């Protein structure tokens, strides 16, 4: 092959790959202006990995605790690695993934996802897995999550998954082609609006309350991994009124915690101690905490972490002070912006 030909075909390959790369960036959902939950997992990697506490779990972690409150009131540097409908196997791999970068003192896992033995929705799989950086952990996470009909290659080349999105592109897809803006506050999803919880329905009786084998397997794995790395595993249940948390579920978790000497805190039972008022602390009638609820929960959990677990107060470390100062500004700016958005008076 002569020199000219090499240039010709080389150039062809470069141009083709560039076009494909650009198209892929364009077509992949940006999760910036709506469904921001899809962007959370990726944001972690931009942080300085020096956290005392890592949260994993579904919406019951990323909407229930405000890391800023944990910092400001207890000096705990925390990060929430939550994502929408995060399944337990995904939580496990996110812990594994986190441990590649840092070793926190405590991992807090919200046990609501124990009820799902396998992935329920491809869309939620994508939102959790896409943001992970490539590693063996991610490969394992994908393999553990894929539903029937999903293809591994679709995760490697997301353009294959989103190839039809060209007809649904928005301005945001172009605006955030290469640079995304932060949508969470250390993994916390802020909402300032209020929708009181009224008439929360009782749970329908289920045929079977026992958690599945697969779910238990990953809880075991998470526990063992934490033991091995000297990380304290704390199990929690967020104070969400709905989806209904069955007493039968509670018994199983309590039994497990007892058997393995783990601490399990059900914030539903501590609602009074937390000072929760479901008429002001939730934005969607009891499913999720709003800012006020999340700050109260953080205050409550921070007390446990700092007093019972003796986590060090790190306020005064200059790097952390500086970084949290900036985070606080972003936090307050968003509060102000949301208040305008939802028409809330001070």
């Amino acid at each position, binding site marked *: 092959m002569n020199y000219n030909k090499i240039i010709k075909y080389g150039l062809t390959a470069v141009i083709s790959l560039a*076009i494909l790369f650009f*198209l892929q960036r364009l077509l992949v959902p940006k999760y910036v202006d709506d469904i921001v939950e899809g962007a959370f997992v990726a944001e972690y990697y931009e942080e300085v990995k020096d956290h005392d506490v890592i949260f994993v779990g579904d919406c019951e972690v990323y909407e229930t605790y405000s890391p800023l409150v944990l910092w400001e009131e207890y000096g705990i540097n925390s990060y929430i690695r939550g994502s929408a409908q995060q399944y337990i196997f995904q939580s496990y791999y996110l812990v594994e993934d986190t441990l590649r970068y840092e070793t926190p003192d405590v991992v807090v896992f919200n046990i609501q996802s124990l009820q799902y033995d396998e992935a329920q929705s491809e869309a939620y799989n994508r939102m959790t897995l896409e943001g992970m950086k490539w590693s063996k952990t991610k490969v394992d996470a994908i393999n553990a999550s894929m539903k029937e*009909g999903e293809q591994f*290659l679709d995760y490697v080349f997301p353009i294959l*998954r989103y*190839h*039809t999105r*060209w007809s649904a592109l928005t301005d945001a897809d172009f605006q955030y082609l290469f640079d995304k803006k932060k949508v969470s506050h250390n993994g916390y999803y802020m909402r300032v609006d209020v929708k009181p919880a009224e008439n929360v329905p009782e749970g329908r009786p289920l045929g079977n309350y026992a958690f599945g084998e697969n779910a238990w397997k990953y809880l075991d794995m998470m526990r063992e991994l934490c033991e091995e790395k000297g990380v304290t595993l704390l199990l929690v249940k967020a104070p969400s009124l709905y989806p209904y948390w069955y007493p039968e579920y509670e018994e199983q978790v309590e039994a497990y915690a007892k058997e393995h000497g783990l601490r399990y805190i059900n914030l539903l039972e501590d609602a009074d101690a937390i000072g929760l008022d479901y008429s002001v602390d939730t934005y969607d009638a009891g499913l999720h905490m709003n800012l006020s609820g999340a700050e109260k929960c953080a205050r409550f959990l921070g007390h446990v972490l700092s007093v019972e677990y003796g986590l060090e107060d790190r306020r005064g470390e200059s790097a952390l002070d500086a970084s949290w100062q900036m985070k606080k500004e972003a936090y307050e700016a968003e509060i102000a912006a949301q208040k305008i958005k939802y028409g809330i008076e001070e």
Partner: protein
Amino acid sequence: MLFTSYLFLGFLALVLILYYVLPKRAQWPLLLIASYVFYFAAGAHFLLYMFSTTVTIWGAAVLIDKNHAAQKAYLKEHKEGMDREALKAYRSSQKKIRFRYFLAALLVNLLVLAVVKYANFFIDNVNGVLKAFGSGEGLSFVNIALPMGISFYTFQAIGYLVDVYRGNTPAEKSLPRFALFVSFFPQVVQGPINRFGEMAPTLYAPHGFDGRQVSFGLQRVLWGYFKKMVIADRILVAVTAIFGDPSHQGAYVFVGMIFYRLQLYADFSGGIDITIGIAEALGISLRENFNRPYFSKSLPEYWRRWHMSMNAWFRDYIFYPLSTSPALVALTKAVRKRFGAGAGKRVPLYISSFAAWAATGIWHGASWNFVVWGLTNWFILMLSEELTPLYARFRKMTHTEHKRSYDVFQIGRTFLLIGCVNLFDCHATLGSTFRSFASMFTMNNYHIIGDGSLLQLGLSGLDYVILAGAWLLVLAVSLVQRKGSVRAQIEPLPYAVKYVMFFGLFLIVLLMGAYGVGYDQSQFIYNRF
């Protein structure tokens, strides 16, 4: 491993690379291994069926060939001393031996095909008869999975057996080589049904890397994926919606009939483009299966241009031998004596083509719907044969012999006619087929074409726009094709233009193809047969 799966694309890339990297003598063995891996992926036990076909037909052909050779050697030595009668007696005695080998292998393979494909059809009909005679209990159905492509590879192997028996092609002595002919992975699923004599020279020959040939092959593969993924798998949604719901009658049947025509062509010819393209990239030439069939002006012409390899098979191996068989010759004579020459000479044609079309029908599927489908084709073909002189007179009278408008009329008429015949294919039972056919004429709901009802069939307005655009592209390519190979016509264009064309086509498939989550990966329609 569907053609439209990532796995197949990876498999194909690997085979292509190995094919040109390995020493040339390893090329056909590589294809054999690849073909068996491909077939194995469909189901390990399916290999057993294919292997039994391979061995029986290979063995019979070798025996037939040996006998042939022995006969030749014997005649060479003794011919001078034999009179004509002795010669005839000797030949016929040898032929009988060969016929036994032939028949044994044929029956074994037809039996296997009959059991796996038609056992339940047979049981169903027996049960129907039993029920009619008041017996409450029927036979129970057998549970046999249909081995992938069995109708195609069995017919291809039988065709070879006939060719060897007739002395048209020498037998392949090597079992592995013959096994490749039966199993060659690009064509094993849906044909085309190839002839050994045509395929063998390029199948086993060593091939050096020829950039032009590989690129031509891959261009055709891409075009096949375009037809399959952008058109066929998209329109499939609407076709399924229409024929899956019995309340869709009248205009819906009309629309569904046209959609099904488009789907079937895009699906089947797209699949064949992929098959022939892959073979071409490997330096192997296969039979063509389509010759722009929707430009046909009559049903006989259509059947010479659509699924050509199957049609040729039935013509060469059923119609032709049957029409010259002793029984039919005798019958022809008798009829000629009683009813005159005109009737006499129609006998072989009518009877043989009847048999060929009944066989074609049952080959397509184990149901009465397909039998009636085949016989409807036969009926229209015969009608068309009889009416040809009448049409010619009509055209002479109206001076439309050379008018393009009449051509267009004929093309449209043929298209609709085939559409109607293919309704048998869209329905599971004869009753529902006839009901929906009649409703096209009796039900006046043609307003649905303009009032947005078509948007309720699972396709959006955008989908229809894509379909229309893609179909125009297919049409344009077909028109260019009349002047010869499209790829050869594109070849002299500047590199940048070609790059834009082919990379653009690739992007269209990538972005507009109906694949992945949200689209069911649909099998190629002709896999079923």
